[in-house]
């Protein structure tokens, strides 16, 4: 029997590194920002790590510290600290490094993860949230270390890969937070990704975050109290159908994956900024109810 409710704080403080992953369009960046805010609200020292240099996330973070780690920078730093300082600039500026990255796929992922491991070991942060790669790439990203261990026999790169693999395999040090939307295709994709990660990468899966769940405006909209064909009636029918779809998908997700769920309410229309993120984060101040098993059988409904 899964628990009826879970406290987000339990997950936010379970491991020092949380890698947030999800397909494009599910709101991974928004979820990363809200998780960061929620952790700050619970008194944790939080660092957000971005793998691409994008202003979008920083605008949502407000005063939460963030750090951008690009593969190119991490690789340059790695070469510098491994006795190749003299040639590292030349390797990078000539583009030879691209060829190296192709020759040994995963080298860029390993150096990025190595940098994250360094931050984790520093003890300066209670939670390092990584705005991870899109789900397709998340699998290759997270299995770069075992892959490297299988192909590279010795040297500094192997040591680095072994350290990274050890961090990822230890659930007290790292977890992966998968993000999805409460709709059929995104839920199917998330379940596939979760199984692939369990099979191919030695990582611990934390809670699933379901983004943009339609809640609020009373659970008891009764379209029948408005005249037939009226806008109020059509709008209420639409809202009820969306909610039923969302409830059904969350329940189905709960049946397919034995992972706790954290839900984020839909944020429609208005501009998303740091203040809106702070507001969204307040929902995780409290324990979160888990989906009912019996809703899952309801399935989807006709339009």
């Amino acid at each position, binding site marked *: 029997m899964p628990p009826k409710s879970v406290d987000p704080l339990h997950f936010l403080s379970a491991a020092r590194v949380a890698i947030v992953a999800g*397909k494009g369009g599910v709101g991974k960046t928004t979820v990363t920002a809200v998780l960061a805010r929620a952790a700050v609200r619970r008194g944790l020292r939080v660092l957000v790590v971005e793998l691409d240099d994008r202003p979008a996330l920083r605008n949502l973070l407000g005063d939460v510290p963030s750090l951008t780690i690009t593969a190119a920078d991490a690789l340059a730093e790695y070469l510098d600290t491994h006795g190749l300082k003299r*040639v590292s600039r030349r*390797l990078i500026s000539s583009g030879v490094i691209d060829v190296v990255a192709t020759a040994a796929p995963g080298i860029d992922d390993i150096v990025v993860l190595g940098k994250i491991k360094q931050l984790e070991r520093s003890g300066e942060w209670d939670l390092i949230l990584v705005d991870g790669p899109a789900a397709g790439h998340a699998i290759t990203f997270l299995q770069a270390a075992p892959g490297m261990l299988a192909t590279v026999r010795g*040297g500094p790169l192997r040591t680095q890969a072994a350290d990274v693999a050890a961090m990822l395999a230890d659930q007290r040090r790292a977890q992966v937070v998968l993000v999805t939307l409460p709709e059929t295709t995104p839920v199917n994709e998330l379940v596939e990704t979760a199984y692939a990660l369990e099979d191919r990468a030695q990582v611990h899966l934390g809670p699933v975050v379901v983004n943009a769940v339609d809640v609020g*405006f009373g659970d008891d909209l*009764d379209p029948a109290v408005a005249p037939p064909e009226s*806008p*109020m009636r059509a709008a209420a029918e*639409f809202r009820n159908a969306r909610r039923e779809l969302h409830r059904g998908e969350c329940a189905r997700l709960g049946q397919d994956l034995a992972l706790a769920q954290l839900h984020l309410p839909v944020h*429609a229309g208005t501009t998303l900024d740091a203040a809106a993120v702070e507001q969204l984060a307040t929902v995780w101040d409290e324990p979160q109810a888990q989906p009912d098993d019996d809703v899952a059988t309801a399935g989807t409904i006709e339009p």
Partner: protein
Amino acid sequence: MTALADSVATAEVLVCCGTGGVGKTTTAAALGLEAARRGRRAVVVTIDPAKRLADALGVPGGLGNDPVRLPIEADGELWALMLDSASTFDGLVTRYASSPQQAERILGNAFYRNVAGSFSGTQDYMAAERLHALHLDDRFDVVIVDTPPTRNALDFLDAPGVIARFLDHPLFKLLMLPTRRGLRVLNLAAQPILRSIGKVVGGDVLADAIAFFQAFDGMETGFRRRADDVLALLRSDVTRFVLVASPRGDTIEEAAFFAARLRSANLAVTTLVVNRATPTFGELPAQRPRRPDRAALYDNLADLVAAAAAERHNLTGLLEDLALDPVGGSVWVPLLPTDVHDLDGLAMIRSLLFDPSPV
């Protein structure tokens, strides 16, 4: 006729672009359905490894690298395939190799397998390559492509150039020189810069890379010419671009960035498809009802009306940027009460895109 209907009726290549998760694949499939209804023989190419198109088309066994004809009722035909970039690349190598031995040497090389499977840009290049081949295929009148969900919006257009740049690569040149001078690989690996690389990645890996570049010798011309042809097709009049976006603030930002890049490449977007827009239900009553149950319905409608207005507002700038006709230049597909994941759902999207709305 709307710009989108015109494109579906006349274009030979339709490229659906936009960031991931905005319904590009579903849109591409719905355009294919409409083309088939108009009596054209359409083929839809998807790149998404998550098999979304197979989902959307209700293909039970999934899609493969070869086109499959779908069981729909239409005057024309609807075909679909899912791009397998590695085997498409293998096909190119086989085609341009001077001998079966050369092809075999390349196909069996570990470095080549990495290039074919994971080199960034390979997928985009192979999508463009496949598009070109299908355009020449007599079985089809129109090729509809769902572009890879890359963050860097125009990788797809840049991709044919990427392979050319790869061949212009300093390392490639460095590696090719000694063979032409008749030196041996062993001497080559002793060069200081390669020694440094070898220290980091290991000697075997480096030897594979060297062997690959050397095996590739003589094939650059064919590859380069092919890349030029593909680029020319993408830039020609028979190709149209459809930008797909959702009305959410974060995706509009990315769509705007995308639009700017298309413009700087001198490519015009013919239509903006806005997916998952909040539906409009009609006017809000003048007064909020007093009865709590009706007041709740009023509040719900007010919330949806406000959301729809905010979305319109969010998209104004993008429509201006795209210099699209304010009326016919964009098509809005409302968020449906349920999810689209079968042929019936797809037929509904097609109808929303093309049939005149009752309003």
